[in-house]
C-alpha cells in the first residue's frame, strides 16, 4: 500500500473525504495477523491421520493479512461512508425507515437469546419459546389473523410462504388453480413470488383514483385464480377504498385474498386485514416493527393466516401446553419448511420489545402520526411537483418529476442524487411503475416536524435548482465521497470480486 495522494494546495487537492478506501485485501502485509486463538490443548496427532491430504486444501484462501487495528480502521472508515437512520432522514417510500430503538438491541443481544442454540432442548429454551408464542398472539390481534408463522426471513419470503400455503390449500380441496393476480402498482416481489410458486401472473391495472380497477379485476377473476396479491394501503400510499368489494369479488370465485403488509405502518390499530376479508398476509417486521435493516437485511417476514389456512403453515409451530411452550411438527398438511430452524429470531426479539414498549394505544398513535406526517408533506410539496393522485394519503405519497423532466430535462434520478447533497437520503424513485418519474416519500412517525420541514425546503430548493441550474442538478451528487457512479459499465463488464495478484 502506498501513501494516499496528498493534496498539494488546498484548492487543487483531492478532498480528504473523497479519497478512496483501499479494499481490505490491499491493506496489511504478508504474515501480519489480527486474531488470537490458543494453541491446541489436545495431544498432537499428524494431520494426515485426521484428514488425508487429498481432502485438504493445498493453497490457503487469500484472506486479508491485517492487524486488529487495520481491521478496526478499515470498517470504521467504511462505516463513515454510509448513511443510516441514526444519521439522518431516510424517506424511502415503501421501506418505513423509522427509528430503530436502542433498547431493542439491548434486549436482543442478551446472551440468553443471542447465544442460544436452535437445537437446545425445549426445556432449556422456554423463554425463547414463550416470546415466540406471545409475539404470535400479539400479531394475530394486530392483524386480525388466527395464526402467524415466523419462518420467513423477509417480506418476499413471506409472500412465497403464503402462496405455497394457498397452493396446498387448493390441492387439499382437489382444486387446480394456476393464476395469481397482481395489480400493476404492486411491488416486484409479488409477481416474482407468484412465479416462483409456479403460478401464471396476471396484472390488473389501477384506476384514476389510484385504486385497483374493480371492473378490470372482475374480468380476470375466474375459478382459475388462486389468489389476488393485494397491497393496502397500496404502493401509491392510498387506501383501497373498495377493499370490501374486492374481497367479496375474490371470494366469490373461491380465490384467496393475500395482503402484502409492507404498508402496515399506516393502519396499525386503525383497521385489521382480518376484518377486511384478507385470508393471509405478511408483515415486514423490519419495517413496521422497527427491526433495523442492517444495510439490506436481515428482515423478518411474519405471515398471518385465517384458520382455514392454518393446517398448511410451515413447521414447527410454537404451542402452549399448560405452562410449557413447545415446538410442534404435528401438522400433517404443512407445506414443509421455508428455511432451517424457526425464523430470524433475533429480529423477533426486537419486534416483541417494540410491541411491549408501545402497547395497543401506542401502536395506533404510530399510524395516526405516520399518516399525519405524510399528508403534511404532501400538502406542502404538491405545488412544486406533479401529484398524480390527489387525495388524502396514508403513510406515504407519490409525486412525479414529470414537470421537471419535461421542462428542464432534469429527471427524478437527478433530483434524487441532488437530495443527497442536502444531507438526506433520497425517496424511493421510479416505483411504483405506474407513475412516471415517481418520487415516493414516506416520512414515518418517528421524524420530527423540524426534520420534515427541512426536507420539504430542500425539495423546494431542488425544484428551483432544476429550473435555474439544471446542469448542476444533473451532475449531482457533489457532496458525497464519490460523484455519480457508472452503473452501465458496472453491468456490462461486471467486476464482482477482488482477485489476488499473480
Amino acid at each position, binding site marked *: 500500500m502506498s501513501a494516499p495522494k496528498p493534496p498539494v494546495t488546498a484548492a487543487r487537492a483531492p478532498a480528504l473525504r473523497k479519497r*478512496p478506501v483501499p479494499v481490505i*485485501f490491499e491493506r496489511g502485509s504478508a504474515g*501480519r*495477523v*489480527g*486474531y488470537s*486463538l490458543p494453541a491446541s490443548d489436545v495431544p498432537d496427532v499428524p494431520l494426515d491421520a*485426521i484428514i488425508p491430504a487429498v481432502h485438504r*486444501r493445498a493453497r490457503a*484462501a487469500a*484472506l486479508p493479512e491485517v492487524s486488529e487495528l487495520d*481491521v478496526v480502521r478499515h470498517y470504521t472508515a*467504511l*462505516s463513515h461512508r*454510509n*448513511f443510516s437512520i441514526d444519521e439522518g432522514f431516510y424517506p424511502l417510500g415503501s421501506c418505513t425507515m*423509522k427509528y430503530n430503538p436502542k*433498547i431493542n438491541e439491548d434486549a436482543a443481544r442478551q*446472551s*440468553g*437469546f*443471542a*447465544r442460544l442454540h436452535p437445537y*437446545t*432442548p425445549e426445556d432449556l429454551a422456554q*423463554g*425463547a419459546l414463550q416470546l415466540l408464542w406471545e409475539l404470535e398472539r400479539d400479531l394475530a390481534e394486530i392483524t386480525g389473523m388466527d395464526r402467524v408463522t415466523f419462518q420467513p*426471513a423477509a417480506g*418476499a*419470503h413471506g409472500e412465497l410462504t403464503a402462496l405455497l400455503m394457498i397452493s396446498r390449500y387448493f390441492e387439499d380441496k382437489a382444486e387446480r388453480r394456476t393464476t395469481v393476480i397482481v395489480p400493476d402498482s404492486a*411491488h*416486484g416481489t409479488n409477481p416474482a413470488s407468484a412465479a*416462483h410458486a*409456479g403460478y401464471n401472473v396476471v396484472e390488473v391495472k389501477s384506476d384514476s383514483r389510484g385504486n385497483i380497477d374493480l371492473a378490470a379485476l372482475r374480468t380476470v377473476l375466474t375459478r382459475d385464480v388462486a389468489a389476488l396479491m393485494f397491497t393496502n394501503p397500496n404502493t401509491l400510499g392510498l387506501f383501497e377504498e373498495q377493499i370490501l368489494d374486492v374481497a367479496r369479488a375474490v371470494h366469490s370465485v373461491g380465490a384467496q385474498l393475500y395482503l402484502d403488509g409492507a404498508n402496515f405502518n399506516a393502519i396499525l*390499530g*386503525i*383497521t385489521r386485514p382480518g*376484518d377486511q376479508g384478507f385470508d393471509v398476509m405478511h408483515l415486514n417486521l*423490519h419495517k413496521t416493527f422497527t427491526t433495523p435493516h442492517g*444495510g*439490506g437485511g*436481515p428482515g423478518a417476514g411474519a405471515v398471518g393466516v385465517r384458520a382455514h389456512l392454518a393446517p398448511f403453515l410451515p413447521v414447527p409451530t410454537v404451542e402452549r401446553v399448560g405452562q410449557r411452550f413447545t415446538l410442534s411438527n404435528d401438522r400433517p398438511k404443512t407445506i*414443509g419448511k421455508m*428455511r*432451517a430452524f424457526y425464523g*430470524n429470531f433475533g429480529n423477533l426479539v426486537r419486534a416483541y420489545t417494540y410491541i*411491549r414498549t408501545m402497547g395497543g*394505544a401506542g401502536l395506533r398513535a*404510530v399510524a395516526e*402520526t405516520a399518516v*399525519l406526517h405524510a*399528508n*403534511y408533506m404532501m400538502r406542502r410539496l404538491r405545488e412544486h411537483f406533479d401529484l398524480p393522485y390527489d387525495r388524502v394519503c396514508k403513510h406515504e405519497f407519490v409525486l412525479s418529476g414529470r414537470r421537471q423532466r419535461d421542462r428542464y430535462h432534469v429527471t427524478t434520478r437527478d433530483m434524487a442524487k441532488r437530495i443527497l447533497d442536502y444531507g438526506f437520503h433520497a425517496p*424511493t424513485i421510479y416505483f411504483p411503475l405506474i407513475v412516471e418519474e415517481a418520487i415516493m416519500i414516506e416520512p414515518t412517525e418517528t421524524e420530527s*416536524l423540524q426534520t420534515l420541514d427541512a426536507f420539504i425546503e430542500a425539495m423546494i430548493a431542488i425544484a428551483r435548482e432544476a429550473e435555474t441550474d439544471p446542469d448542476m442538478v444533473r451532475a449531482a*451528487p457533489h457532496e458525497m*465521497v*464519490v460523484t*455519480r*457512479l457508472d452503473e452501465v459499465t458496472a453491468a456490462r463488464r461486471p467486476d464482482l470480486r477482488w482477485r489476488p495478484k499473480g
Partner: protein
Amino acid sequence: MKYIPTTPPERDRMLRTIGVRNVEDLFRDIPEEVRLTRDLDLPAAMADPDLLAHMRRLAERNTDCDRLACFLGAGAYDHFTPSTVPHLALKPEFLTAYTPYQAEMMQGELQAIYEYQSMMCELTAMDVANASMYDGASATGEAASMAADLTKRGEVLLSTALHPEYRQVLRTFTSHLPITVRDVPAVDGVTSLAAARAAVTDDTAALVIQSPNFFGCIEDGEALARTVHDRGALLIVAISDPVSLGLLRPPGEYGADIVTGEGQPLGNALNFGGPYLGIIATRDASVRRLPGRLVGRTVDTEGRPGYVLTLQTREQHIRRARATSNICTNEALNALIAAVHLATLGRQGIQHMADLCARKAHYARSAIASVPGYRIAFPSPTFNEFVVRCPVPPVEINRRLLEHGILGGLPLDQFYPELADCWLVCVTERRTREEIDRLAGQLEALR
C-alpha cells in the same frame, strides 16, 4: 412517547396546513365498518426499566452456550467470535442503514459487501458469490431452481446426507415448480457413489450434496462431480460450516458448479436459529442466473473507484415475474459480520481455527470411541462433527450431561429413525480438553 416526537401543538399546526380538523379526517377512506373502534388488545405498554427487566427474565429462562459447554452443531456452530465483530459490524452506521439504493451515499456498505463476495470466492474457490441469501437451507433451495434453469432439466437429486432441514426446505421451495426431487442414499455415512451413478439421468439438473455432510463425514466430491458431469448435470455443494474451508479442499477445486452454505459460523450469533447467512457462489458463466443482489466495482464521473448494486436486471424489481428469484431484503448485516470475522481471522486465523476444530474433534472422537459401548458410526474422515452409536438413548445421555454443564450432541432419531441410537457430536475450537474429558467421563457411567 419517546418514539413519536410530534407534540399536540405541532400536530395541530400540521392539521391546519393539511386543511382538516382532526386526525380521524385522514382515515375516512377506510370503510367505517372495518375501522377499529377499540384499542388493540395487547399487553399494557411497559416503561423501559420494567421492559428491560422483563426481557432479562425471558432471556434467563434460556440456557445458552455461555452457560454450557456446547457439543451441539448440526447446522449451527458455537465458534469463537473476535471482539472486533460486534464492535464494528454492529456500528449503527451499518446497522440502521437500508439497502444501498443510493450508491453514492452508501459506499461503505457496498464496498464491505464487495469484499464479502470476494472472501466467499476465496474460501470456496468459486468465481462469483452474491451479497447473501436468507440462510444455508433456502440458498440451497434456490440453487436447485437455478440448476434447473441453467440446465433446462427437471430433476434434482438429494443426498440423504444433506442436512434434513435443508432437504425439507428444498422440497418445499420446489414443490410447485416443474422440478422432481429424488433422494440418493448415504451408505456408511457418505453419499453412495454407486447410487448416484444409478440415479443420474439425462434429465438430472443437479446432485446436491453437503461436505462435510450432516454426519460430519467428508464426501468424495471429486468422484461425485465426475459422475454428474458425465451426464451433463451440475454438482451443488452445501457447506454447513465454512470454517471447514480453512482446512478442507474447497468445492471449486473438485468441480462444484454451485456452492451454497450457511454463514452463521463466520461470526454470526447462534440466535436460536436466525438471522443467519445464506451463501451462494457459482461460476462466472452462470452469474446472470444467480439469485439475489450483487455488488460490482465501477468508477465515478471523475474516475474514482466506487461500488454499485449491479446486474439488477436479474432481480424482481426490474424483471418482476421473470426474475431469477424473488429475494429482496437479504442478510446484508450477517454478510458484513462474516466479512469482519474473516478479515480479523485472516489468512492464518481461519486455518488455525479449522486446525483446532479438526484436532479437538479428533481427540473427542477417540476419547468417546474408547468408552466401552460407544462406537463411531461411520469410518470416513470427519472435520468437527461425527456420529456416535450409543448403548443408551442419546436423549438420556444429554439429560445427564446437562447436569454436568454440557449441552450434548443431536439425537438423530428425529431425522433418521433408522439411526435411533445415533448421536451427532460437534467439537469446535471453543471446546477445551477438560470439557471433552468431562463429557467422555460421563459416558463411562452411561452404558
